[in-house]
């Protein structure tokens, strides 16, 4: 039994569990990501510095706006699409195929593709709207612009999971509802949503975690610009660790984000469970 586990256990311990613990340890040191640096234990110094840094708070705020709005919009859009796909409509097949394409695409290609859409000269968006805007370089428009891309990218998984959930709701419930004279809306509120609840809680939690840890897509789209307006926490941490080489500081940032995510998730799941009872 343990012999069977061994081949998988060794790499996970060596390159995943080990580094994770090491990384948590690094957060309490002044480690630099350079050769021949004498690393010293500094206690909570990194945390103090982090909490006093204005650029951390602005990145944190942007990260929360991004993660919450993408997760919520993703969910609403995906629920709408899943409900439509669950109906017997024509062209449903087309939508079904299109709905999973973003899932398979490399995030880098998604980023580049949307850069072409948003391109100030050769992009289709300006030509459609008759505007002359440099979407991804505009201080107030860059964040909304990447949020749209985030929703586009993450909709497939959410739609697929919600659709599977919808198809798992027993038909008898709807028939009973109809007998009791419940209209479409009442059936949606009183049957569909409560029945779907465990699936909704699971997928929105996952979406939130994936979104707040997002890196590649936004790195390709804006590199965090303009002026840090789209610098999500992970882009901030990446710059600190691999451009300025403050490994200890960046690790503390990662640890702080992990704690925030766990806290948000814990609160959300706890509330959902209490309400479900």
């Amino acid at each position, binding site marked *: *039994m343990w*012999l*069977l*586990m061994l*081949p*998988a*256990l060794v*790499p*996970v311990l060596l*390159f*995943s569990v*080990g580094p*994770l613990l090491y*990384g948590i340890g*690094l957060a309490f040191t002044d480690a630099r*990501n350079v050769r021949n640096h004498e690393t010293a234990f500094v206690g909570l110094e990194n945390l103090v510095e982090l909490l006093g840094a204005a650029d951390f708070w602005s990145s944190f705020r942007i990260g929360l706006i991004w993660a919450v709005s993408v997760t919520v919009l993703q969910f609403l*859009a995906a629920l*709408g*699409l899943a409900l*439509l796909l669950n*109906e017997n*409509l*024509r*062209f449903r097949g*087309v*939508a079904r195929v299109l*709905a*999973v*394409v973003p899932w*398979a*695409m490399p995030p*880098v*290609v998604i980023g*580049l*593709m*949307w*850069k*072409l*859409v948003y391109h100030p000269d*050769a992009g*289709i968006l300006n*030509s459609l709207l008759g505007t002359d805007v440099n979407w991804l370089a505009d201080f107030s428009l860059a964040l909304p612009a990447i949020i749209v891309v985030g929703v*586009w990218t993450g909709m497939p*998984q959410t739609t*697929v*999971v919600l659709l*599977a959930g919808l198809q798992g709701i027993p038909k008898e419930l709807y028939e009973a509802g109809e007998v009791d004279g419940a209209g479409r809306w009442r059936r949606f509120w009183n049957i569909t949503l409560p029945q779907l609840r465990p699936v909704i809680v*699971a*997928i929105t939690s996952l979406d939130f975690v994936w979104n707040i*840890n997002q*890196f*590649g897509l936004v790195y*390709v789209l804006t590199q965090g610009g303009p002026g840090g307006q789209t610098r999500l926490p*992970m882009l901030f*941490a990446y710059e600190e660790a*691999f451009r300025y080489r403050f*490994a200890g500081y960046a690790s503390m940032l*990662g*640890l702080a984000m*992990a704690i925030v995510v766990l806290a948000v998730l814990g609160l959300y799941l706890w509330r959902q469970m209490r309400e479900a009872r």
Partner: protein
Amino acid sequence: MRRLSQYVALVAYIVFLAFPLVWLLSTALKTPQEMALADPTWIPREPTLANFADAFGEQDLVGAAVRSLGVALASSLITVLISLPAAYAIARHRGLVNRIAIGWVLVSQVFPFILIIIPLFMILRDLELVNTLPGLVVVHVTFTLPFALWMLQGYVRAVPPELEEAAAVDGATRLRSIVKVVAPLLAPGVVATLLFAFISSWNEFMFALVILQNPDVMTLPLTLVRFTGPEGVARLGPLAAASLMATIPSLIFFAIIQRRLKSGLMAGAVKG
């Protein structure tokens, strides 16, 4: 009336999902002269395949594709080889190990990559594996492993243990019953997991960005990003063409495993 509004909504979704893809295709088929025009159009006036040929000249795309292919093949094969025995153990012996494994799958989703990539980078540097493809393979295997394990143990569980017991009654050894009875039933699941691991590695950008800094060893996603740089409009055509080509393997493989992936994700979503 209700039907009508449903169709309007469905069409709106199709437009939203499709228009960036159509634009990518349209850009890939345009001549540099047309790209420079003030008012871009959906349908290229003189569609050309020249961008696809030009893409190969712009950067070392062929080399990057070969490297990506190598990394993806190596990491998907290794991932499945080492997770298959573990998946069998987890599926057949419920209990503590099972719970720890599932817990790790979830934890690995929550922790931000930066916490792992910094120490991992330092470890790989000490092992002289930074800027090497084996270094990237190690990282891809480690990070695909939890989900691969999760998928595979689901497939093992779907094979009734009674079949193995029956084989044992007929005098087959444990190993023989696994090879002769379990393996054939497991084959489609193994293929699905292989393809999933392949796509994950082929598409992966973040770890590659940190580990491969030398342009001579960069994988396809990194090379595509280098395309952009201080961009002239003329280069957008080849960029779009290269992006399309880089997507093809993932799309084909994904189409094959789509159904199986759905059920895998559902199992995770409900039990998680």
